[in-house]
């Protein structure tokens, strides 16, 4: 049980996917103008990550022990098709949720955080439950980072900022400061 809590906290804070591993930066910089959308994208991310964790576990157990060189290709295809499948299922079951997620759902396919999750949890040799907890932690971490940056950006729109620094430069510097704050979590639980 302790082990699982470690995995969760480590993925959520210490090795935060966005702020210390630099995964999923495109949505991090692209869709954080509004807190609301950033939060929804985060939820969609968690959702897809959990499905990816299940799929990559299945692939690792049944297919890739026979053909390890197919790892990358099979992961990306499974991720792309499962996102497609999830999209169709949500559209059928709950049109409201589908509308709320909008374009973000298909875009998640090319989000490096998803493939990163599959690769990292394979490299670390996580089993079924561990992989699931890792996915929840990583998804939560991505959501946390999105919400934090979006909240700061909403504030910056009200302040008087020099025209020179506006845009991506400012966002990167804000992200740097948030990331610096997250460095404070390093060393939690020793080297874990």
């Amino acid at each position, binding site marked *: 049980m302790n082990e699982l809590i470690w995995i969760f906290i480590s993925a959520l804070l210490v090795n935060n996917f966005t702020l210390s591993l*630099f*995964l999923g930066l495109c949505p991090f910089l692209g869709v954080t103008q509004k807190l609301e959308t950033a939060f929804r994208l985060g939820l969609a991310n968690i959702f897809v990550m959990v499905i990816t964790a299940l799929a990559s576990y299945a692939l690792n157990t049944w297919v890739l022990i026979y053909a390890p060189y197919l790892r*990358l290709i099979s992961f990306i295809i499974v991720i792309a098709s499962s996102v497609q499948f999830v999209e169709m299922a949500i559209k059928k079951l709950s049109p409201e949720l589908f509308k709320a997620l909008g374009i973000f759902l298909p875009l998640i396919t090319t989000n*490096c955080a998803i*493939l990163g999750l599959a690769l990292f949890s394979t490299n670390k040799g996580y089993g079924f439950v561990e992989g699931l907890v890792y996915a929840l932690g990583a998804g939560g971490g991505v959501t946390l980072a999105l919400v934090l940056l979006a909240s700061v950006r909403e504030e910056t729109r009200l302040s008087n900022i020099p025209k020179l*620094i506006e845009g991506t*430069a400012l966002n990167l*510097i804000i992200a*740097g400061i948030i990331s610096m704050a*997250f460095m404070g979590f390093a060393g939690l639980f020793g080297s874990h």
Partner: protein
Amino acid sequence: MSEEANIEEAGKEFLKGLWKENPVFVAVLGMCPALAVTNSAINALAMGVATMFVLICSSILVSLLRNAIPKQVRITAYIVIIATFVSVIDFFLAAFTPEIHKELGAFIALIVVNCLILGRQESFASKNRPFLAFLDAAGMSSGFTIALLSIGIIREILGSGSLFGFSLFGASFEPWVVMILPPGGFFTLGFLLLFFNWYIQRRNKRNALIAKSEV
């Protein structure tokens, strides 16, 4: 079209990636590797070269197959092509430079989801002749490598006081450790973009002044 115009056009396709449409500094594409593996110059260079190989090979192949791939499944087809070349470079690096492969870790595999590569297939290689696609890919990936290398050099000099592993300042230098940690990546790219903004604004102002004095 005359021969000369052809050469000029080809040169333009190559050069645009270096500066005017630089993937990292202007288009802000491929950010994940640009920040994640640039904590030293040698890692940045390795990443740039690996990306160059994948982008050039897959651009040529996509361009050759551009009439054979059905429109509905094109994205999936591009991804499979890209993933194949990434697997090739992944195993190549693991065999010949195991140290660098270990340093870069999963980020080599993550070249698959680099939006720069998929973006070039979708917007250029799938619509142009193989030769032009090759030039476009070479230019874009050179621009990418230059951007990565400049971030890597700044971070390595400030963060560990060395360049390509050679110590620059001797033992008395106190390294600015935060620069090789994740926040340093954000800061370096942020300040580089700030510098380019400043430069472009200054140049525009000067051009406007010159235009005014000529009138």
